């Protein structure tokens, strides 16, 4: 018996291994240093994410990554590298945005950052998972860290409730996902995605297989919060500590899209006609419900939760438009834009939150323009981008997604998406109106370097992708999955 992998395989896993090691180091340091040195821990976590990013760039230059590694369990193609970079971006933003918030709270910071990094490890493995078992284990690592992070402020009833709801529905949905995986395994006994594709290419369409695919789809739709698997989202987003909410809205979602796209493009491509119909219906329902429900919210975190549900609906258009390359282009550019604009919007809530959960209602945005003009202008930029108004990143993303849907023959869905984007203007406008046209408290806005940096990065990203999208698109177009 020989081992199925080479020594050089480990080199390609350098980012994951390094991030795990840093998570462990943070745990140890947290015990050694205590609560007083939390800023240092946040700094260390940021640096580790940065170095991991450099390692990802290093891996990108290695020629060995052309073939799947470790006996086919993982693959380090451009698609995986793109998602790894995006995951690390959201991780770095989260750590920076958490520094002040977690530092002010009476909870240990070391474990918090360690859990964030471990969930990052799970997402990195998800991005390059090439085998249903490795994908599942990585997904669970990410999910379990998320449950704990949601309940991290355990003295706050809201936080515990958020964790409870997230946990019940998350474990439930992963049970459904697993049942689907077991049925697909029964169809041929292979777990690797390329092997599965090869096997299914010659297999006929069987009900068992369709049931398996349907259940896997249901499990993954839960992770991206698509209707009708969205019910957890508003409560979890509202109850979790705000930096964690910001993280949930980008990191785990992006990673879930990575595996959704990979599983359905690589392994189940042949049965596109069957699952495509379901995805189309889900996408339509998600866009309508997310946008309409967002209209009725007065809590900004909840509003953004529904807005992120609606965004999940738009991004599903890219999964649908898989016959042409536009589908994947759309997903990639949209997720990149979405990470910047959504995280930016949440960071402004963090900025307004002086303590605990204050600063979450729309009225807390009253008169923001008078308190701090730059903050109000930047928030306006994020809102415009979320609504998809040019020249912002959100517009470019939506343009590609809607075109993908048109090219895939789902014109009705593209039209619905445009209409729903128009509806979304109403609730985004409510926040904008509160900021510019009402009087609010005259208190000065206090920012920190870390928060200002996060907001600046998000604003620059949102604007640059919107104004000069060409260089980004060139890179993205080399990141599509080879078929």
């Amino acid at each position, binding site marked *: 018996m020989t081992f199925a992998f080479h020594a050089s395989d480990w080199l390609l896993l350098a980012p994951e291994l390094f991030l795990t090691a840093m998570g462990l180091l943070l745990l140890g340091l947290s015990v050694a240093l205590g609560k007083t040195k939390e800023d240092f821990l946040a700094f260390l976590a940021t640096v580790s994410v940065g170095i991991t990013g450099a390692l990802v760039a290093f891996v990108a230059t290695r020629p060995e990554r052309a073939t799947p590694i470790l006996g086919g369990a993982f693959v380090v193609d451009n698609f995986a590298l793109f998602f790894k970079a995006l995951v690390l971006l959201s991780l770095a933003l989260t750590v920076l945005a958490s520094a002040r918030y977690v530092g002010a709270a009476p909870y240990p910071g070391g474990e918090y950052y360690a859990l964030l990094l471990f969930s990052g490890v799970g997402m990195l493995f998800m991005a390059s998972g090439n085998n249903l*078992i490795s994908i599942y284990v990585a997904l669970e690592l990410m999910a*379990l860290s998320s449950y704990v992070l949601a309940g991290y402020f355990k003295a706050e009833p809201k936080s515990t409730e958020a964790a409870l709801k997230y946990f019940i529905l998350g474990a439930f949905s992963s049970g459904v996902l*697993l049942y689907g995986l*077991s049925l697909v395994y*029964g169809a041929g006994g292979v777990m690797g995605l390329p092997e599965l594709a090869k096997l299914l290419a010659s297999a006929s369409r069987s009900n068992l297989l369709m049931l398996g695919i349907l259940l896997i789809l249901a499990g993954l739709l839960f992770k991206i919060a698509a209707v009708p698997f969205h019910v957890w989202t508003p409560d979890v987003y509202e*109850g979790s500590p705000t930096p964690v909410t910001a993280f949930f809205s980008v990191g785990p979602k992006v990673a879930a899209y990575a595996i959704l796209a990979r599983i359905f493009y690589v392994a189940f491509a042949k049965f596109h006609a069957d699952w495509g119909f379901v995805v189309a219906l889900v996408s339509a329902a998600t866009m309508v419900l997310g946008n309409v429900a967002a209209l009725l919210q007065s809590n900004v975190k909840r509003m953004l939760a529904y807005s992120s549900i609606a965004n999940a609906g738009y991004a599903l258009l890219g999964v649908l438009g898989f016959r042409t390359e536009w589908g994947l282009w759309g997903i990639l550019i949209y997720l990149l834009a979405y990470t910047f604009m959504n995280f930016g919007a949440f960071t402004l809530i963090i900025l307004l939150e002086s303590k605990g959960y204050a600063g979450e209602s729309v009225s807390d945005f009253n008169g923001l323009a008078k308190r701090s003009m730059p903050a109000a202008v930047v928030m306006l930029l994020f809102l415009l981008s979320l609504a998809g108004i040019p020249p912002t990143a959100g517009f470019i993303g939506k343009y590609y997604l809607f075109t993908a849907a048109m090219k895939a023959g789902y014109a009705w869905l593209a039209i619905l998406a445009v209409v729903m984007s128009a509806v979304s203007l109403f609730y985004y406008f409510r926040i904008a109106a509160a900021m510019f046209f009402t009087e609010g408290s005259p208190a000065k806005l206090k920012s920190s370097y870390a928060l200002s940096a996060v907001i600046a990065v998000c604003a620059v990203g949102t604007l640059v992708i919107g104004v000069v999208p060409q260089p980004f698109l060139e890179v993205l177009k080399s990141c599509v999955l080879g078929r």
Partner: protein
Amino acid sequence: MTITINHYLIVSFLLFSIGFLGVLVRRNFLTILMSIELMLNAVNLNLIAFSRRLSDLTGQVFSIFVITIAAGEAAIGLALTISFFRQKKTLDVEEAHTMQG
């Protein structure tokens, strides 16, 4: 008595459905947790049966992963139970209604 793969699938699906219903209808958080464990057990039953039918060990290995992950989830679930109980003095998940909207 002749048992085919379909019998296994039926038993496993029934076990899964019982767990599924348990999660939906029960209010006690501990019972919900146990129902989730039942669902995961049904998955293992499927994996082992398919593994036997295909003469392939991967199914057995997968079920070991599932057991591992079920154990980790149970640990977190029970920690949450304690945390929730401290605040509400009950295990009724219907009491988790601070957030509305």
